[in-house]
């Protein structure tokens, strides 16, 4: 972030400037400015110096000041903090940047999930899945349209996919059967691409599995007045008891990485969301009182 400005001699004439050869002209430079840090910790340091060509260069360094783990320091350590620099540390260049904070978030990567908990996890996942199959059709085969029996990739009728419409018409579409006949004929007639949701065997009443973007807004609960420390994992932990959660999102400030205090939780079933809103609206969480409501769908233009 450097930009060159034309040198503007204020009280000296250019002739004198040439003679001194730019060596001792530092007094001409505006003083170093430090702006901030503001409430989000963004600090801006503006320095001026002459480059080799004698042009005045303005160097703006924007950095973010973060408070690190609050450690208790001994008196000696505090004293040492104000020690004068020595050795090569004395004349550190403006742009040297010996110390940088990694832009990459590094995690302690676990080698593998502990064996016990993983088993448990997959078991509970299986449970909720089988439970779901009774009333909602999360598992919908896009090849043959069978609900709650198998995933698309495991469809036993995969090879018959082209004939599917005619060979299993009645078994696969109990809900939209009369509209289906008409559209199946239409689909056979034109070879053009038909989006899955528009296909004959698609169940229009349930958008689950048909449209990724719309599914994200399904049963979305907006959670506001979250504390800054609340992470997505915390929200997941908080909402999991109410039923399967398909998405958790906490809004973060892009510049500072601090939570903006609201988030969204999507439930697989609406009843669970309803229950969560009833229970957790007004719930005290991290010294703040949560506010929950159904998210208003994003406006699409």
């Amino acid at each position, binding site marked *: 972030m450097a930009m060159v400005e034309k040198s503007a001699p204020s009280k000296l004439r250019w002739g004198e400037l040439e003679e001194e050869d730019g060596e001792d002209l530092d007094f001409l430079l505006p003083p170093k400015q430090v702006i901030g840090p503001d409430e989000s910790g963004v600090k801006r340091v503006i320095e001026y110096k002459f480059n080799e060509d004698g042009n005045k260069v303005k160097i703006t360094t924007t950095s973010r000041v973060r408070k690190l*783990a609050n450690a208790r320091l001994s008196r000696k350590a505090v004293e040492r*903090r104000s020690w004068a620099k020595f*050795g090569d540390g004395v004349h550190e260049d403006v742009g040297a940047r010996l110390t940088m904070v990694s832009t990459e978030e590094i995690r302690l990567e676990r080698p593998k999930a502990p064996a016990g908990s993983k088993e448990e996890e997959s078991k509970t996942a299986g449970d909720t899945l089988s439970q779901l199959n009774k009333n909602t059709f999360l598992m919908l085969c896009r090849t043959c349209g069978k609900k709650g029996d198998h995933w698309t990739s495991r469809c036993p009728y995969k090879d018959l996919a082209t004939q599917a419409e005619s060979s299993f018409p009645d078994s696969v579409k109990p809900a939209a059967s009369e509209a289906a006949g008409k559209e199946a004929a239409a689909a056979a007639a034109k070879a053009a691409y038909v989006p899955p949701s528009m296909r004959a065997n698609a169940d229009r009443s349930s958008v689950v599995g048909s449209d990724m973007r719309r599914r994200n807004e399904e049963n979305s609960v907006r959670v506001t007045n979250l504390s800054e420390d609340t992470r997505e994992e915390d929200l997941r932990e908080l909402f999991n008891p109410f039923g399967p959660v398909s998405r958790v999102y906490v809004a973060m400030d892009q510049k500072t990485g601090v939570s903006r205090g609201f988030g969204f939780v999507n439930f697989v079933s609406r009843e669970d969301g309803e229950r969560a809103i009833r229970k957790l609206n007004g719930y005290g969480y991290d010294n703040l009182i949560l506010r929950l409501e159904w998210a208003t769908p994003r406006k699409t233009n």
Partner: protein
Amino acid sequence: MRPILMKGHERPLTFLKYNREGDLLFSCAKDHTPTVWFADDGERLGTYRGHNGAVWSCDVSRDSTRLITASADQTAKLWNVQTGEQLHTFNFDSPARSVDFSVGDNLAVITTDPFMAFTSAIHVKRIASDPSEQTGDSVLVLKGPQGRINRAVWGPLNRTIISAGEDSIIRRWDTETGKLLQESEPEVGHTKQITSLAKSSDGSHFVTGSLDKSAKLWDIRDLSLIKTYVTERPVNAVTMSPLLDHVVLGGGQDASSVTTTDHRAGKFEAKFFDKVLQEEIGGVKGHFGPINALAFNPDGKSFSSGGEDGYVRLHHFDPDYFSIKI
């Protein structure tokens, strides 16, 4: 966590050391200037200029006033920590490899490499409280082990010195008589060169890392093997958390083969192991080369690693690190 990257060295790092309070971090590298950093934000405080060779090791006194460094220029130097001024130079006939202050900082053990006609040796020097009275005489010189001695540290109450090196045997020496008291059992010990040795914060046990791709935990009093941590790459650096039962191993493939293989094959991670269960907890990635040095902050809340890539990476742990369960 977002590690702090410190690029003060132009050559591979060799050693890292925190002072007692954990507010200063000393780094040694193959370039000739040991550097001191503030351990909280990674700001450079200063450099110690004067060595004329790679600096292999350093130690800082308990009150953080003196620094001692061992260098390949066949000297060990005493420094004023605050000003970077040289207080004394110990001259040897061969490169100095490791240094360690005794409890009380009155003595220092310095190891020297085999060089030309000289064999490797362990020197014990008296450190005067007034630097003007400092002399270069050795109180004790221990000889015997074949090959380089990579690390020598003081045992409990300064009564013993523990040494480990190229011959993969750990030795315990008497500091009064200079006699060799004990050698580690070859059946349970390392099979290849021992590269690093780190004492626990209470000094009751220590961990050694070896090129045989394992690290071992030993009792400092009788050199009995307590635990073994097996990994899949040579271990160059080891350290132990003073707070939790964690052992950290650093390493990677040989520096010479780094450029010929994919970067993922190098496994330049700091590996965390559970000290008791000997199970791997996790890895911290980031270096572009093998890790040569590791150090834990005495408060146990951060650690730093130094790599062949010339970077020191200072990691402040996230809160969830402290609640990891195996």
